[in-house]
Each structure stands twice: as C-alpha cells, then as structure tokens.
C-alpha cells in the first residue's frame, strides 16, 4: 500500500509542480501571450448519449463474460472429445447474441 501511495503521491506532486513551474515561467517571460478573455465552457445538456454509451458496452461485457466461463469449460470438454456438446454450447449463445446484435444494428444504424 505504501508502495502505491509513493507512486501516486510522487505522480501528483511532480506533475502539478512541473506544470505550475512551466506556466509560471511562461507567464513571467517575454514570450507570454497578450492577455486574453477566458471563455467559460459551454453547458452539457444531453445525458442520453452518455447513459446509452454506458449501457451498451457493459451489457455486452457481462454477457460475454458469463458466456466465456461456460465456453472455457467447454474447451476442456472438446479436448476430451465431446465435440457435439461443445458445438451446441457455443452455437446457442452465439445465435442469441447475433440475433440481438443484428436487430440492434438494424434499429440504430443510420
């Protein structure tokens, strides 16, 4: 824990100090820019894109992770010669996922 603490603490201190020093030097130097108006960032209004982006990758991840565990077991069975069982075990989740994937693509693709 102290090891990671040292890593993070040094990272924070050294990056902030380096950036601050360079910015200070620039501010005090002859090559500094003319004073400019500091624009405020615009407001972010749409949250739909963000929430959609979160749902899609994590649902795909959870689906594939759950499938992968059974697939890994099936791989061992394949080595033992239970080929039909393995093919069935792979075909069903692949078919289900492909069905959902292509339906989703049809619905949202521009």
């Amino acid at each position, binding site marked *: *824990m*102290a*090891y*990671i*603490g*040292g*890593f*993070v*603490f*040094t*990272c*924070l*201190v*050294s*990056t*902030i100090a380096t*950036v*601050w020093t*360079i*910015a200070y*030097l*620039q*501010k005090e*130097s002859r*090559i500094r*820019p003319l004073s*400019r108006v*500091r*624009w*405020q*960032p*615009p*407001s*972010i209004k749409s949250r739909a*894109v*963000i929430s959609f*982006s*979160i749902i*899609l*990758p*994590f649902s*795909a*991840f959870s689906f*594939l*992770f759950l499938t*992968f565990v059974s*697939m*890994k077991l*099936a*791989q061992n069975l*394949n*080595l033992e010669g239970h080929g039909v069982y*393995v093919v069935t075990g*792979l075909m069903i989740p*692949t078919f289900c*996922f492909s069905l959902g*994937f292509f339906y989703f*693509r049809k619905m949202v*693709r*521009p």
Partner: protein
Amino acid sequence: MIIDFIQGASEFLGTVAFVLVIMELSFLAEEFFKTRFEIRRGFSGTGTSILEILKRHLLKILRIEGIWKDHVAFGLRAVPFFIAVGLLPIWSYRPGIENAYSFWIFGGIMVSTPLLSMICQWSSNKGAGWPFNLISAERALGGATALFILQITLVALTGEDTFEGFSHIQQHAWLIVQAPLSILLLIGFVTVAFFASFQTVFSKSHRFDKKDGWGFDDFFPSLNRVVWIIFVANIFLGGAPDFFGVGGFVLILKCVIVNVVAGIFSQIYFSFREDQAENFILWSLTPATIGTLIFSLILPGHRT
C-alpha cells in the same frame, strides 16, 4: 513502510521517464517522416531536421498556460494513466505494480479515466464542460465494447490475464508468432487505441473544441496513445526481453516503431469522419473480434 514509499516514488520516476522518451521519440520520428513526405510534394522544407523539430517541441512545452485549478486537474488526470503504465512490465521482466488482476484493471482505467474526468469537470463547472472532454469520454465508452471483447478473446487465446503471465509466455517467442490469430487482435487494439485518443485515422484530431491557448490538455491524447502502444508491445511483441540488462531500451524501440508506423500508415491511407469511425468500431471491428473469440475457443491448442 518508508522504504516501500520511496520505492514506489522511484518506480513512478522510471515510469514517467519511459513514457516521455517514447512520446518524444515518436513525435520526432513521425514529424520528421511527415515533413519529408511533404517535401516530395513541394513543401519548402524549412526546419525539417531532427534538431529543428526538437527545438520546436521544447518551445511548445515552454508556452504552457493555465491557472492553478488547471494544473491540479492535470495532475489528477495524469495519475490513472501512469498507474496503467506501472501495471505493465517496462524496464524489466517484472511489472512495477504487481497485481493479480492487472490486465482487467488496465482496461478499466483506460475506459473510466476520460469518463471520470468529464464528470469531475461537469460537476466542478456546474453543468458545463469543454467538448474536448465530452468527446474523450464518448470515445472511451464507444470503444469499450470492442475493447472488452478483445480482452476476453486475448485471455481465451492465451489462458493468461496478468501482464506478468504474458511476459512469461513470450520468453522464447512473441505472441504473434506463437498464435498468428492474435495479429487480428493486435490490429483491433491499435484501432481502439487510435479511436480512444482521437488521432490520425479519425478526423477529429485537428480541431479540438477546448479553451484558448496551449495547455497540458493537449498532452492527453498523445499520452493515451502511448499507454496503449506500450500495452500492445508488451502483449504481442514480447515486451522487455531479458537482453544484457537493456530490455527496457529494446521495448522503447519497439514502442516507437509501432507508434510511428501505425500513425503514418493510418494517416496516409485512412481518414475516417467521426460517424464513419464509430460505425467502423461498432459494426465492423466488434463482429470481427467476436468471430476471433469463437475461433480461438473452438480450436484448442492454437498456441504452439
């Protein structure tokens, strides 16, 4: 405890040196070749030597602006990226930060950091934020589906899910030699890296919607890309070999070559618009990766 703390601090210094060397060497080589390419097309060629380019980069760094809040925000954003590099074995065979879940933590950091950064900016600015941060977050999340599937496929292909394990299996041969199917994954990871750092292949790179002036925000896309390239070199190209104590330097060379070649190749041959890029990642790369996952599971013993 104090010794551990100091060791962690020195590990960070080694990590940052490693990243900065790769970044600057890549910039130098990429800009050098790009200007040479432009000369052939009639550009006058002023300031195209390596020294001139280096001088220009130094001057660019010295022109950094910003207020105290920007500098603290930069420091906080930089920490996860350097932790991600710390999880990878860089200077030697062993990673700086050892963890049994390092492979998954790396992916999580690379996806969640731009998102957390956007949320922090959004909350600290009371509902406002620069489009630059919003695009970074959107791209990290947009590439996450492909990234997760690529990661799972890699684990299925190799049976390893730690960076130490990947180093171990590549002691005698690179992964792309042991398992040629992994070349597809390499291309997939490089594409996701370019997409997440919105550079070269994807046309957003030349107009960042951000505040005026030159700040360290401009540094993040390159940092993101370099972290991904170190990952790719570690996983597929043997990482730091045990070679007369200079394995780290060999890895730097590999990273620079991959970074420059991928950058130039993508810039010369491809330029996707924003919507084309998202289509490509989601509708072409993702199904191809799922296909690779299925193949790698159906065909056991793929790694020789």
